């Protein structure tokens, strides 16, 4: 699958309190969570973001709490994938488990500017900045994770395991 959208760029250590502040954790509704995505570090993100857009982060993206509300908010805001140099481990798991595509690619993070039009091929991990014409290659997922992604997330994977 190929996705295309505008890049929204952030620095290192974007934490889950920044992605979705705790004051909104009294709901599990994706739309409500999406409406407050990035609020404390980028107050007009929600008004700028368009369906299919891409978040580009630095090192340790998604550090902090285990709240799955963070990838849920990003997905519900319309973001199609997150590219970062590295991801914090719980965010990494959560994104895979709920089916939010994520890609580790330090070169792309350095090579894509905020506002660039970017294209990502989720099947082979190829990332292209249409604005600069440069191309990058993300690391592939291990086979086991590809199985979860192919099943459409951990819940579908678990459904098969319990024989539903």
């Amino acid at each position, binding site marked *: 699958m190929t996705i295309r959208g505008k890049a929204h760029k952030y620095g290192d*250590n974007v*934490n889950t*309190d*920044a992605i979705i*502040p*705790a*004051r909104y*954790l*009294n*709901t*599990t509704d994706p739309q409500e969570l999406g409406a407050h995505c990035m609020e*404390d*570090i980028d107050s007009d993100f929600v008004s700028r973001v368009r369906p299919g857009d891409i978040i580009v982060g630095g*090192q*340790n993206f998604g*550090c*902090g*709490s*285990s*709240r*799955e*509300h963070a990838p*849920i908010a990003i997905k519900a805001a319309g973001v199609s994938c997150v590219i970062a140099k*590295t991801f*914090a*481990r*719980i965010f990494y*798991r*959560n994104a895979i*488990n*709920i089916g939010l595509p994520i890609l580790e690619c330090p070169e792309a993070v350095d090579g894509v500017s905020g506002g660039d039009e970017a294209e990502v091929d989720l099947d082979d991990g190829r990332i292209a900045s249409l604005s600069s014409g440069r191309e990058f290659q993300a690391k592939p997922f*291990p086979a*086991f*994770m590809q199985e*979860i992604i192919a099943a459409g*997330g*951990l*819940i579908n*994977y*678990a*459904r098969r*395991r*319990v024989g*539903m």
Partner: protein
Amino acid sequence: MGQTITQKILAAHCGRQSVEPGELISAKVDLVLGNDITAPIAIQEFEKIGAPRVFDPEKIALVPDHSTPNKDIKSAQLVKAMRDFAHKHGITNFFEIGRMGIEHTLIPDEGLVVPGDLVIGADSHTCTYGALGAFSTGVGSTDMAAAMALGEVWLKVPEAIKFIYYGKLRPWVGGKDLILYTIGRIGVDGALYRSMEFTGETIQQLPMSGRFTMCNMAIEAGGKNGIIAPDETTMDYVEQRAKHPWHIYESDPDAQYKDVVEIDCRQIEPQVAFPHLPENVRPISQVGEVKVDQAFIGSCTNGRIEDLREAAAVLKGRKVHRDVRLIIIPGTQEIFLQAVREGLMEIFIQAGGAVSTPTCGPCLGGHMGVLAESERAISTTNRNFVGRMGHVKSEVYLAGPAVAAASAVLGRIASPEELQR
């Protein structure tokens, strides 16, 4: 090739003799944990899986602690969903208000985790229980849902970093200072995806409370787990509480480490992490003049009886500064009662502090002490991200209980030694 304690526990839970770093395994869990923020999503996802019942109702713990006592109607609905789910599936380890505690203080105190266990919790600070020589790590709600159905979790076997602490600790220096110092040294992603193994003579001298505090904050360095091999101190704690049998593991002498970090503890002062990352650490002597509006003592990091005793030792016979609000929250109802019996609560209240039933509230800016614009808190919690305890323009400084208590008295971040001069 030798195995680390973490490798041994993971191998034992997937029926293997050994596992290698980087391998993906499916491991059996001894306990699955969730709170009132993460469990409601896990319950929704569990229903989607369609399993008729949970894998083992004795191996699930549900602790409503983040927004409790319920701070608003929406939070009350979330807690109700947990309570209903616990009833439906016969989950006895659901801890109701008045009989509960902050999950990571409560669960080990209740003996629900023992050495050698494999625990996952839908809360990042689940890594706390590594202090007992268990493998314990934070996951998300969907992981919790799948584990409640299958009794298993997928894990990548982590590489390990060995930390060796040596030398005698100075007065007012404890587990919080050691872990803040360590994070200051390696950074907030210094242990990303890795196991942090805490060893050395200083750790052997550290009480369980300080060990829990250290493992609790492994996640603030990006760590997958923090772990300390069981010793006499561990077993004194475990033997009087354990609800199921334990297994003692320790790292082989020839275990492989990605890195070995030696830390001379003799010169470590009380530490303070400045906004807005736990790695922005300074020794108390280098803090300068930083006025505070609020001091908070509590949380899964520092809400144990030893922490309260330390705070009381500083606050006894003193008054909280007129410009400061001091909030003290014991980690569990048991600790609360113990603090009453020891007269600590009287010291806190006479000093002008507020005390409450256990809750995570202030730590995540939820309730019970939210900060206004431009306000500043000294806090014994674990995170000082932008807006963590309230307004996006408020500030959080992290420290241990003694520094928080001394700061409450002096109205600025200060060492307890200043009060003794």
